């Protein structure tokens, strides 16, 4: 694994990504301990983690790609496939289910033309289910990008995705 600093071998990581990952490595006893942080860094820069990125990170952390992929695929917020500019995380756990998240999903699907796990044709949104957003008292909830939307109703969906309406 002596080749980990050989830039030619890790074209899938940019200099800034490498700098940020190395900053994390400085805090831990084992390089592989920053696996999750490194995945998050790359995802922050690229939106998702491609196979090439994953292999480059694995090499940089002295891990096998298989081992790192086990970590990456464990977490549902590490995206191993391309996502839209903003990810819609629609909560479907018990409180939100009681408060009608199913109807919200149907309405979003109708409005944006995408089912769960799909990305709009204009690449603006990806719709994903999520198990809990920690705001059960304000169910139903969803996140769009970094914004949390509470007590979501049909009408508010119109406002949130208004300009996307009909853009299918």
């Amino acid at each position, binding site marked *: 694994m002596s080749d980990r600093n050989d830039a030619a071998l890790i074209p899938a990581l940019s200099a800034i990504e490498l700098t940020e990952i190395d900053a994390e490595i400085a805090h831990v006893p084992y390089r592989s301990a920053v696996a999750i942080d490194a995945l998050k860094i790359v995802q922050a820069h690229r939106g998702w983690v491609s*196979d090439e990125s994953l292999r480059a990170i694995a090499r940089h952390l002295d891990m096998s*790609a*298989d081992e790192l*992929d086990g970590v990456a*695929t*464990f977490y549902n917020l590490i995206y191993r496939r391309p996502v839209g500019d903003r990810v819609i995380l629609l909560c479907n756990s018990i409180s939100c289910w009681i408060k009608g998240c199913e109807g919200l999903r149907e309405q979003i699907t109708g409005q944006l033309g995408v089912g769960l796990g799909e990305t709009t044709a204009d690449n603006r949104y990806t719709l994903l289910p999520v198990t809990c957003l920690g705001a059960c008292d304000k169910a139903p909830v969803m996140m769009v990008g970094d914004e949390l939307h509470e007590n979501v109703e049909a009408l508010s969906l119109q406002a949130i995705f208004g300009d996307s309406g009909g853009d299918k």
Partner: protein
Amino acid sequence: MPVITIDGVAYEVQQGQNLLESCLSLGLDLPYFCWHPAMGSIGACRQCALVQYQNAEDTRGRIVMGCMTPVTDGAIFSLAGDKARHFREAIVESLMLNHPHDCPVCAEGGECHLQDMTVMVGHRDRHYRGRKNTHRNQYLGPLINHEMNRCITCYRCTRYYRDYAGGTDLAAMAAHDHIYFGRHQEGVLQSEFAGNLVEVCPTGVFTDKTLVHDYTRKWDLQSAPSVCVGCGVGCNTLPGERYGRLKRVHNRFNADVNGYFLCDRGRFGAGFVNSENALSYPGLREADGRYRALDHHDALHRMAESCARGKLAGIGSPRTSVEANFLLRELVGSQNYAPGFSDAEQLLVNLALELQQQSPAVIPDISTIESADAVLVLGEDVTNTAPRIALALRQSVRNKAYELAADLKLETWQDAAIRNLAQDQRSPLFIAAVADTPLDEVALQRLSLAPDAIAALGRAVADSIRGNTPATLAAPLDTLARDIAAALGAAKRPLVISGTGCASAPVMCAAQAVANALVDSGKQAMLCLCVPEANSLGQAMLAGPQAPDLEQLGKRAASGELDTLVVLENDLYRRGSRARINALLEAFSQVIVLDGLDNDTTSAATLALPAASFAESEGTLVSLEGRAQRYFPVFQPRDERRPSWVWLLACMKELEQPQAHALHHFDDITRACAAQVPALAGITAAAPDLHYLNLGVKIPRQPPRYSGRTAMRANISVHEPKQREDEETALAFTMEGLNRNQPAALLPWVWSPGWNSNQSVQKFQTHPGGPLKGGTAGVRLLHPGAQHSNGPTQGQQPGPLNDADDSQNPQDGRWQLVPRQRIFGSDELSALSPAIAELAGPGYIEINAVDAAALGVTPGAGVHVGDGLATLEVRVNDTVAAGCAGFSIGLAGTDNLIPLAVVTLSRAEGWRPRPQIIARDRGTGPGGTHV
């Protein structure tokens, strides 16, 4: 010993066990999945539930996992109570939610631990009405089939593959309902021990692809106790046969040798038995060079005629039995009998035997190797020469973890806790080799040196242990030698490993010197010397150091002293360069070859006799630890194939040789050999003789549910013939008889009512993971220190017997050829098995980048070796010691290359690699199933 109460009955159990082990030891059927005796407990599957009560007044109790519960004196449990039973049934039901109903088309069906456990807990009716999850399967190479839908997420596969065997390319992906055990990308599993997944997986996720392509259910397999012929380790195996074809090889448990695991060469390398190149009839070469098929009477007559007329010489074989070799030696006379090594190897194997006989160090079996707490490997790439020992070394480095655990009073079966505790702290392992080896990743330190430098390092370590000033070594080697000496000196059970792998006598002598120094400093030191073939050590014991080698036989034939050669199961073209072997064979007017497969030597025969393979014959093999072990015929050889000993004995009787008069059965040969060869005196004890009966009957090779005995030959006749009698061994070609309580050497299969899978082996053990009730198979012939001499043994270094060049000093433009042993390809027979051949690929030369630049070659280019010795692909590997050129010994195109010869290398202009074999089952498309 603690006393525990289960369902109102008090039992005495072993201290240090967990409750699951105790229950199984007591013969109580407690279902489990994730626990494995060799891998400990993690409590993942929740299957082995019992109810534990606080005290006699506690009537509710609480559910505990058997595998995670230590047995303590006075503890009260319920196994059969409703609460525990319902819990266990619910667990199986939950595991079955996504499990397909595909048992009839699943290769695991009939020997599936999940089937057994489902029946055991009584789960019958499904309540789940939803859709089952489906997964895409991966191509994992030519050995292993992947069917993820069957997974019950017990994690045994990754725990075995990563934690136990050190593989890195199999991982648990995703979470909850989507968990997937596979690789990052499709591709060949890289671990040399991947095949054990077939037996470790409790259901049909990982199955034997070679079996899937030529399938028979376990209950229809005829099987016999056998010994792997893939290398010198002598792992115990259970080959299974149906319709005259060897279908698969499973592990045969031996607590002292292979335990639960085999390497992939052993498991998948027996396919040569079914080869289309197998000889079925004797052949006599006519004047026009063609062979005329003979029946065995004619062939025998011809053989006897030639032998009676001629001045006889014999070449034995380190890949076949002691008995066949002994008979050949009797036939031709010991002064005319060469053991069948290459000339260089003969010196090395004799030396390995001598070094072990003369050292006071313990000669370890594999379970003892696992106990080593500091290891020095000199020159040997153990993973590729004696693979099962490498797996043991991967366990030995964990002794540090067990020490840490003992300090915290953690039980050894607390697997996850101990791994967490130790992280990457390991017992010291030092490796000095000609280039990188797969064990390097668990080594404290490794370095690449030329063979002579490895020997010098070893001698310096020995000097340092004795407190002498070591001979001058260049820095940093002098420090390293002191570090190694200190680490070995600080250990309780230090182990030194070397062998014939790098073809250097000084390296082996240095290894012995280190072990001797450790013993003299009061250590319980161990010395393990690897030898290449299944009976290499047996051949050294039989032939002795004075036996002639091929060179000497050739010379005597050329002088007219000898004219008729009998070659026993040995492709001589693997024992010397083509020109030398051609000259040797041409020096004889008659060449009689006994072998199972067509090869260059059989093609040079004037009379070729078809010899039965290990799977069709009986014999004794002596493993590298000096353990004599018996293998038994799994099935009757077809056509005119006969075990070599049968051919040889019949020939001797035809010749009316007096020493053959008293020999009637196989056992008589074993006894005669034991009586005549002092070193082999113990071999009669390797297994019971043919008169052994279990409650009055022989041991059945077929399990009780063996089916279709009439139907399987209905195309010939609907009348079932009488089962053929085995007149040579204590086993019978039948399902009648008792497979219980006999000596371990006679265990032909494992099955117990309710336990159809290989997990049933625990019913044959004294306790789960412990030795078999029938003892340990095999008998050890080497007794350390028996001939302890105080002076260091000075081995004779075999000269580089190279036609082109015999200079010993590397100079500019010259490289020393060092063998790079390959688990897939370096061994003759396994390389003839299709699955292994696919992994072996063509031969190559390996040099470091500096040397490659000097030669002006890049990876993938070709080089000429010597003056027309070989032209091979170049691989650049920076770990190859300077001045050395590694060559893939045994692989195609390397047969003229002699270890340690000094040769020139030059760029081969316009060289193109040969086309690779294409996997027969690639191309079913991504995610295609390979059922």
